[in-house]
């Protein structure tokens, strides 16, 4: 039994230096700015359907990517941040949201279904918890083929009540698969706060029921996420079986663009904004690493240009040709 087993305290990574943390800050900032522009585009009806923003949670995806760049990732429908952290360009992301042929899924997927095979970003999925078994299958394949890769699966606290999640955990532990399950606990499943969804509010404890190694951590500091995901990925990669990480975070926006999030207690958002991952990292860059305001401004200017270029690219890209309507229903049979 592995109930008493825990992840090693030390990460295999050295502490971040100024250069790395600056890079991580830039990545988080780009995700933030692209999503802020997406919100604007949504109000102009350039982006349609559902649009779930990741604003406030960027440190989780960006920190997790450091040690898992060449691993497989799957995520839920709030996946703009994970997709970009894994390598999807701002242009391909924005074009997909705009429903254009140049989008990461050629306009077939939209906000909830970003895919990028080249970067091993295996999708955003819209059925809560439904993709967790898929990630288990990816881990199965990685293990059978001795790839040395892990499957990293992101989902929210809301997914932790789904049967699919539990079944996936059972199978992953039974077969000792190289998988890292990351429950991003942002305290709300749509409009229902954690304490009204679950008697158990430490979601990582779900792992104990299947004998899986687990850990709960706060995810507002990108370096903490970087280190603990690296420890979990190493553990899984070395053949010790899967890990469930619960990363405590907070979303600043509503569930989707149509949700004003009036269910939050007075003052909660302002309080949580003190632990905004961008704010925390900015302070660390200035205070711990002496990064100058000038450098910070240059990053902001650079990110602004990249985000605005993504908008322009998405806006100017063509819609999918109507003749392609039937191209993605069946893969062609060879021979």
């Amino acid at each position, binding site marked *: 039994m592995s109930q008493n087993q825990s992840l090693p305290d030390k990460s295999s990574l050295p502490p971040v230096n100024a250069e790395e943390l600056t890079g991580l800050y830039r990545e988080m900032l780009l995700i933030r700015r692209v999503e802020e522009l997406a919100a604007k585009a949504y109000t102009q009806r350039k982006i349609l359907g559902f649009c779930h923003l990741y604003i406030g949670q960027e440190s989780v995806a960006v920190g997790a990517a450091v040690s898992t760049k060449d691993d*497989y990732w*799957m995520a839920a429908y709030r996946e703009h941040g994970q997709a970009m952290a894994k390598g999807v360009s701002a242009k391909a992301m924005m074009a997909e949201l705009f429903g254009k042929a140049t*989008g*990461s*899924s*050629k*306009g*077939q*997927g939209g906000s909830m*279904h970003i*895919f*990028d*095979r080249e970067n091993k970003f*295996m*999708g955003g*999925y*819209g*059925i809560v918890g*439904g*993709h*967790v*078994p*898929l*990630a*288990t*299958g*990816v*881990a*199965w*394949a*990685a293990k*059978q083929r001795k790839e040395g890769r892990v*499957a990293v699966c992101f989902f929210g606290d809301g997914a932790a009540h789904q*049967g*699919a999640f539990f*079944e*996936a955990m*059972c*199978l992953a532990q*039974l077969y000792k698969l190289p998988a890292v399950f990351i429950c991003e606990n942002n305290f709300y499943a749509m409009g229902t706060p954690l304490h009204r969804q679950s008697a158990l509010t430490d979601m990582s404890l779900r792992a104990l029921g299947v004998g899986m190694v687990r850990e709960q951590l706060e995810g507002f500091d990108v370096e903490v996420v970087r280190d603990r995901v690296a420890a979990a990925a190493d553990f899984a990669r070395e053949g010790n079986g899967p890990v469930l990480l619960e990363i405590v975070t907070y979303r600043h926006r509503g569930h989707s663009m149509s949700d004003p999030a009036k269910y939050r207690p007075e003052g909660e958002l302002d309080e949580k904004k003190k632990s905004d991952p961008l704010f925390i990292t900015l302070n660390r860059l200035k205070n711990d690493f002496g990064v100058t305001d000038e450098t910070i401004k240059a990053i902001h200017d650079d990110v602004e240009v990249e985000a605005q270029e993504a908008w322009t690219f998405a806006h100017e890209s063509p819609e999918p040709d109507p003749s392609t309507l039937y*191209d*993605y*229903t*069946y*893969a*062609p*049979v*060879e021979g």
Partner: protein
Amino acid sequence: MAMIPIREALRQAMCEEMRRDDSIFLMGEEVAHYNGAYKVSQGMLEEFGEDRIVDTPIAENGFAGLGVGAAMVGMRPIIEFMTWNFSLVAFDQVINSASKIYQMSGGQYSVPIVFRGPNGLAENLGSQHSTSVDSLYAHFPGLKVVTYATAYDAKGLLKAAIRDPNPVVFLESEMTYGIKGEVPDEEYVIPLGKADIKRPGNDVTLITWGKQLFNVEKAAEQLAAEGIDAEIVDLRSLRPLDHETVFNSVVKTGRAVVIHEGFLYAGVGAEITARIQEACFDILRAPVLRVANRDVPQPYTTNLEKLVVPNPERIVQTVRQVMER
């Protein structure tokens, strides 16, 4: 040619393909050490080992989804449902995942997977173990839905299903695993989407699939004795549908009856009937009629159960109705 039972034809199909392609694995409840709930995978654990013949806990959503994920990165899973009734707790994985991922990803990820297991009535099992899922899965683009009646078709179609780059729902029957049929010694594959004329005839087209073929054949013999020469079209594939074979036959006979398990209401027979009238209206000499399950959940006890599913007598009576017009 050897005479072998259907379960062995299915096993041969899987074993031959697994020897050819090591990315194929079989996963499901009791498939390995128990040798399969219906012994379809008898001996396969011994040949292929535990990494490729994989027992699962009772977690259909979990292992169906596991198969889909593995397929996305290039493995070729065969997922066995002990019966298709149990697939309903994995419906999300077959529909929302398997059938849509190629489209959602803009063609970046295909899902080469076979979901297989017995479907439909298996006698006295009550309503939760007697469902015909044909119409549920045939409804969705992105899936292929395949079934068979004979050992020859079972083997050739399963091999094609395993080789197909798309998710295939492969419908079997507990009732016919022991039925023997001729299977060639040399390798063969039957392309998906091709119907087969099991009996040529001129007076009426009987369209069916799966184990109802046996009832339809009995009915055709009785009709022949009455001077009615029926042509039997075995669809074998519900999606894609072989319109050409169906329409050619109906154009020849001018009359058609569709016979299948599963409910009449929104059943696959309704779709086929609609398509025949759309394409062959001017040629039809009588309305297209259907013989299917009575509109009730399957009762357990024998006399009531027999009333629900099609039988040769009901088929003959229905054919007589179309012949009288």
